[in-house]
């Protein structure tokens, strides 16, 4: 039953980053792989093997507030226990591309509890790297990311190395 919560960003697979909460019965099976392409300017898309992660780890290791065997942290649930954000399964649903309170009007809109939410890029990296280091997973930049042409130019890589 809990597995139905494991749909992590089916829409990530299709390139859409705004997963809408679906009623539990209508939830599709969790995706086998998710293509992460938020950094597509400098890096080629990363295919995240959701299946192997879901087989080996608890859902709430990554879906820390919403899915699996209870939330890992109850911080969000204090307010959102019965509201749509609690049903959110995709990372991108809460972690926006940019976390910077940019214009002054935007900054004033940020509520008290949402002051320090990680950007999507930061959330994914912080989520992956610590665990990969502990579990001997790939943890070098190029172990997951292959440069695009623009990426090579940005990092000033000449010749055919890497």
């Amino acid at each position, binding site marked *: 039953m809990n597995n139905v919560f494991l749909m992590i960003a089916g829409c990530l697979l299709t390139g859409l980053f705004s997963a809408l909460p679906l009623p539990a019965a209508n939830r599709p099976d969790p995706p086998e792989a998710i293509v992460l392409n938020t*950094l597509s300017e400098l890096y080629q898309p990363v295919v995240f093997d959701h299946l192997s992660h879901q087989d080996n780890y608890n859902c709430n290791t990554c879906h820390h507030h919403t899915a699996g065997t209870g939330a890992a942290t109850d911080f969000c649930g204090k307010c959102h226990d019965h509201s749509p954000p609690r049903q959110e399964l995709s990372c991108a649903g809460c972690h926006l591309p*940019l*976390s*910077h*309170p*940019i*214009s*002054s009007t935007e*900054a004033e809109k940020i509520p008290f509890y949402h*002051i*320090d939410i*990680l*950007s999507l*890029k*930061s*959330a994914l*990296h*912080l989520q992956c*790297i610590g665990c990969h*280091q502990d579990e001997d997973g790939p943890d070098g*930049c*190029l172990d997951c990311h292959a440069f695009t042409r623009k990426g090579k130019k*940005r*990092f*000033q*890589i*000449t010749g055919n*190395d*890497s």
Partner: protein
Amino acid sequence: MNISRRIALKTALAGMITSLLFPSRRAESHQIKQYQNSMGVLVDLTRCIGCRSCEAACNAEQKLPPPKKPFNDLSVYDEREHNRRRRTDETRYTVVNRFEIQGIDHPLFRKVQCNHCQEPACLTSCFVSAYTKTPEGAVIYDQSVCVGCRTCMVACPFYIPTFRYSSAFNPSIVKCIFCYDTRLKYQRPPACVEACPMGALTFGRRKEMIQIGRRRIENNRGLYVDHIYGEYEAGGTSWLYISDVPFEKIGFDMNIPHAPILDSVKNFLGFVPMVLTIWPALFAGFHLLATRKENHERKKTQVEREERQ
């Protein structure tokens, strides 16, 4: 007649000294100009993995010359120049350095760039006013008025402004400008912050960055050192740091005063004009007074001697 002149001189001198001393006392406890919407960056040293994305982004944004080694080459962390880790220079406005600390199984990384002080020592030391602290928080520099004296390089407590030694006829100081021209002016985060994949750099209003820093320290009790480096150092800086190891172990100077650098030299510098203008007149006066008495007595004895004869 003589006595009254002496009293007049004394009172004048006393007045002069008090007028010189008291304004400088009052100026000592001056307020740092706080801009309400001044921006800042919170650097969380627990998150940095030393990927050098920020260095690459800075190079591209500021159109700096290509580096000797590509930005994904991590062997730069072993480079030492005069037994010193890498520093910023005219080809790089920011560098990341690696620190291996005993008792910690992973290396720590520290990004170096201009900290954009609230009251910059480079700015106050510059006698042609080449530096400006903008309301957005950046400390920027105008090459057109710079005479290349390099006083700012001496004044900066963080050793940030560097000189463009490659050009002999075009004096220029180079340092991080917070991406002012291309980004900060338009309320956008600097290129390094945008490039950071780990959320080690957070951009926002300085006072909010202090709030976030405090909250991270409180919410992860025991993880962080209970200090935000830059909140008070050198009068406060726009770039702020939180760390899980003592700051001095990763190259931070903990002896930097909490008051602006200006405050530690102002009293001394305030004396310079006085020494140059008042002292010559004052001591010439003393000399004249002292010798006048001697002359007077010499004349007097001469007269007496003549009278006796």
